[in-house]
């Protein structure tokens, strides 16, 4: 029965309708009902994800659950949506994360609560839109539309320096995407269609590919973010409310990685090949340099933010190593592990970083400070929270059995096939990641209780516990059984490898 529904359209428009309803309820003064509606809507979305996963055909790389409508026929722009093995896990991640954020807002957001919920519902809808759009211009619309609710979330519910961070965030990311639109128009005219798969077929000269590659790079690198266009992120994170940070880390960064998978590699394969050294270098700088920067942080949220950037380095590394891997090993199948590692890293980063930000949000709500030194000894007063946070920390450290391990492991193992020193540099994260994560953990949770505020702390409530447990569950599921995730991507990744290795000249 469920399969007859336009599942993906529901994933996009149900939250939007719910958002409007929530806003209206807020206007009518029925705030609690509004909260219930918001939670119910996202919950329904999550249930609708079940057929998305269960009925997913893993034997084809074609878009599934596809819906096509004419939108602007004059320009052949369509409302064309569907998912493949790359988009589908990200859709589920989006809905899952959104549910967590909206549940977590139950008590922690009291200021303009219904507007807050509506903002995040719309953000969820737009993010899903990005991952399901098959039409390039539809993709662009969702891509830009994501910015607005995020901008509002930081600007309205952020902390002290919020307007600086909000504007910085907006300009940075907007600047990146302007060129992307031009490229898409160019490709659309050339292919006489805005359907992304049609872009893959057109042949492009090296110069064209280079220009296209750099335009995409600017757009996606800012989102991921890659060094050196990452400095918006720590500011955005520190100022954003907890929910905003979770969405930023878990979803906003993923659209960048998704862009590399969907556009850069298959549309400009020769340019990607020619510039892979640059991308690898930037990724490694991200992993090592940003990791070291995380070590220097005294602000807990900034530390988590930098750690989040460092982990995203594995995504871009996994994407662009494929040429070197195939060059050395001669077997295109060897590229799969690198790309799949990058994909798993994206999903697991959503859980891991999202969880750290959420956990931090719970501390912030209680203590209203981000300075690590004003914590200390929290394990004494919040033992359950400390235990759960340890799980998240371990996922961040990449301990086997947690989701954080899987992607890094796959990428590092693949990296060796490309070049020993790439693997060497990437594996440094084992040491650096452990250092900043556990050093933070020690300073925040261990030791004697020094401040009165910490002494008065209450452990997590029932609701907080449930939300955190959902994340713990997700982290262990992917950690112990990544095949559940890998199996849906195999065919699509195979196809992507094919496209990326085919010259277009």
């Amino acid at each position, binding site marked *: 029965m469920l399969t007859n529904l336009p599942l993906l359209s529901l994933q996009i428009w149900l939250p939007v309708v719910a958002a409007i309803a929530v806003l209206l309820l807020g206007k009518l003064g029925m705030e609690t009902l509004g909260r219930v509606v918001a939670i119910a809507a996202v919950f329904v979305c999550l249930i609708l994800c079940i057929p998305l996963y269960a009925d997913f055909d893993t034997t084809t790389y074609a878009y599934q659950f596809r819906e096509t409508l004419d939108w602007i026929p004059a320009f052949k722009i369509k409302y064309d949506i569907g998912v493949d093995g790359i988009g589908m896990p990200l859709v589920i991640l989006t809905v899952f994360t959104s549910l967590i954020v909206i549940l977590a807002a139950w008590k922690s957001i009291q200021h303009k609560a219904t507007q807050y919920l509506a903002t995040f519902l719309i953000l969820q809808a737009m993010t899903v839109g990005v991952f399901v759009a098959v039409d390039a211009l539809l993709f662009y619309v969702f891509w830009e539309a994501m910015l607005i609710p995020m901008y509002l979330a930081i600007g309205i519910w952020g902390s002290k320096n919020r307007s600086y961070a909000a504007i*910085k965030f907006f*300009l*940075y990311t907007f600047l990146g995407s302007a060129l992307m639109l031009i490229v898409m128009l160019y490709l659309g005219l050339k292919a006489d269609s805005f359907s992304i798969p049609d872009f893959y077929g057109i042949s492009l000269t090296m110069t064209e590919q280079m220009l296209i590659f750099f335009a995409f790079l600017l757009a996606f690198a800012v989102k991921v973010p890659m060094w*050196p266009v990452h*400095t*918006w992120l720590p500011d955005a994170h520190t100022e954003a409310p907890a929910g905003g940070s979770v969405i930023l880390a878990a979803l906003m960064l993923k659209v960048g990685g998704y862009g590399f998978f969907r556009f850069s590699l298959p549309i400009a394969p020769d340019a990607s090949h020619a510039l892979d050294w640059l991308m690898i270098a930037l990724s490694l700088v991200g992993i090592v*340099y940003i990791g*070291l*920067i*995380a*070590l*220097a*942080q005294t602000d807990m949220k900034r530390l988590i933010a930098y750690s989040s950037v460092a982990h995203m380095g594995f995504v871009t590394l996994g994407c662009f190593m494929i040429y070197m891997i195939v060059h050395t090993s001669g*077997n295109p*199948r*060897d590229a*799969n*592990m690198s790309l*799949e*590692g990058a994909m798993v890293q994206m999903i697991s980063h959503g859980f891991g970083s999202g969880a750290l930000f959420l956990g931090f949000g719970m501390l912030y709500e209680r203590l209203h400070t981000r300075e690590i030194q004003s914590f200390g*000894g929290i*394990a*004494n007063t919040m033992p359950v929270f400390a*235990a759960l946070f*340890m799980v998240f920390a*371990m996922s961040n450290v990449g*301990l*086997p*059995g947690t989701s954080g391990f*899987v992607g890094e*492991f*796959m990428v*590092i*193992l693949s990296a*060796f*096939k490309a070049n*020993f*020193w790439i*693997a*060497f540099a990437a*594996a*440094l994260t*084992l*040491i650096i990641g*452990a*250092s900043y994560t*556990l*050093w933070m953990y*020690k300073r925040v*949770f*261990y*030791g*004697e209780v020094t401040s009165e505020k910490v002494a008065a702390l209450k452990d997590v409530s029932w609701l907080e516990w449930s939300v955190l447990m959902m994340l713990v569950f997700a982290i262990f599921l992917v950690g*112990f*059984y*990544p*095949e559940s995730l*890998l*199996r849906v991507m*195999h065919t699509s990744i195979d196809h992507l490898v094919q496209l990326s290795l085919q010259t277009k000249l």
Partner: protein
Amino acid sequence: MANTLYHYALVALLAPLFGCLVAGLFAKKISIKAAQGVTIAGVAIAFFCALMLLKWVMFDHVAPYNETVYVWGTSGNLSLNVGFLIDQLTVLMMTIVTFVSLLVHIYSIGYMEGDPGVKRFFAYMSLFTFGMLSLVMANNFLLLFFGWETVGLVSYLLIGFWFKKDSAALGGFKAFIVNRIGDFGFLLGIAVILSYFGSLDYATVFAEAPKLSGSTIALIPNVEWSVLTVTCLLLFIGAMGKSAQLPLHIWLPESMEGPTPISALIHAATMVTAGVYMVARMSPLFNLSPTALSVVMIIGATGALSLGLLAVVEDDIKRVVAFSTMSQLGYMMAANGAGAYEAGIFHLATHACFKALLFLGAGSVIMAMHHEQNLHKMGGLRKYMPITFLTFLVGTLAITAIPPFSGFFSKDTIIEAVYESHISGAFYAYCCLLIGAFVTALYSFRALFLAFYGKERMGEEARHHLHESPFTITVPLICLAIPSVLLGLVMVSSMLFSQPGLMGQAIPVIPELDVLGELAAHYHGVVPMIWHSLFGLTFWFTMAGLATAWYCYIQHPEVPAQFAQRFSAVRYVLLKRYGFDAFNDLVFVRGTRMLSNFFYYFADAKVIDSWLVNGSGRGVQRVAGIVRRVQSGYLYHYAFAMILGVLALLVWLVLR
């Protein structure tokens, strides 16, 4: 039968995990007794299963089990599986792990009584058992790495168990990071294996290994190294971290911040021997790389001597035992390096018993002394704690390798094997190990004499409270003392010198390296071995150590102080532990900190963010500020500009 093996193995693995989950997740709901009960039951079940497996695989010669349990992940042509390998080596390790773990669980009932975190403590210990079992049961590098890291995690958690103490929290942190440095090498080793062997399963890798013995890899352009040597050395870096080999040994002394039962279980009997186990398990790889074996042997032997020396000047009873652990691990590694893997594993087994015994004995003393750990504040304890004393004495005799205690058979074989070995550096290693025998006897008896003999140096108050520990503590001591006496006597023939031995084909050795085979030619039974040893150097080095300890700490207690004064420089170096900590602190810790501060405060905050990003923002502002003035809105400004323009155009036309 294969199915039975699988089921017993699975139960052995999951029972401790179940105990851990119940005690950990429902800590608030259940009583302390229940938490202890469920964890102990879990480990007891695991111990029972391990014993059954031991019986079948080792003594009934049931074929080893080597199968996939489930597919963890697939990618490209590769399938990464979680699978068990149940052979002689595995069942031996499983038995050791669950045996010591069970006793330490029971011991901890008494030792941890009254501690507010006691449920957490039991949950951690069971989790550790689970991790350690998956480490030894793995049939591939993936599960091995999982177990490897899980025990590292639990070690971190348990060292920092009393996390209110800064030293404990720091000790755990240090242990984790240093282990991670080892894991860094280990992971790269796994990466080499995957890319050259195309699989992570032991069986495939070992079968392929000989084909690769000629291949080389150029890590630095134009410098070709043997692939197998690189692989083995990278794996050995992992072993260095976990098994506290030079120079990654630095975390082990700090690990003593954890509760004493943990020191016995994790940092003496089981986890720290994981590296020794791993090298033995990888023998098909190490066999093919004499260079790697040589490195293993030299590092092991150097550690055996130099780290043992540190114990001689240490006053903290736990740390004495900790240094002695590091020294003994060196012996095991040296055995591996000589190709006498089985001797290394045998020493691992005997060591697990007597070292756990020594640690738990030390714990018993510490409890009686109300958490006083300084040897100089003890003395004469044998009168008050007879059981602890006797078992500690057994442990000491075993570790110093005095026949016929268990340590004698394993350690003497190691020293002989290294003597017979033809690997380069073997003679150096032999000397180290031989002098090490003297040092072992010296520090072991020193600790024994200082604690249990001589003047009672504790305060009146403390003396008043001295009494023997309760039976939950003494029973495990006795249980460990029995194998410490007998294990060597009973097992040495069949473990080391029979064909086919108890280990079957679990640890293959190639003929060129088969030093144990050479020794077996001269072996005629237990009694001749003991008799023969009386004429060997090792025995007399040990006796010299004993005599020195007796002279210095019983006969003339004033002598050590004079020595300390005479050789103050030596003492200083030893007290500073050869300066490893100072060096690391200066170079690595400070270096990293400086680098990260530089990157953050200068490169990131200044150059990128302040100059480039906000700089371009300010730049736009400034340009806009200037350009803005041009658009004043006054008509005459624009008219004037127009006239100027026309004039300029005219001038250009005229002059051109």
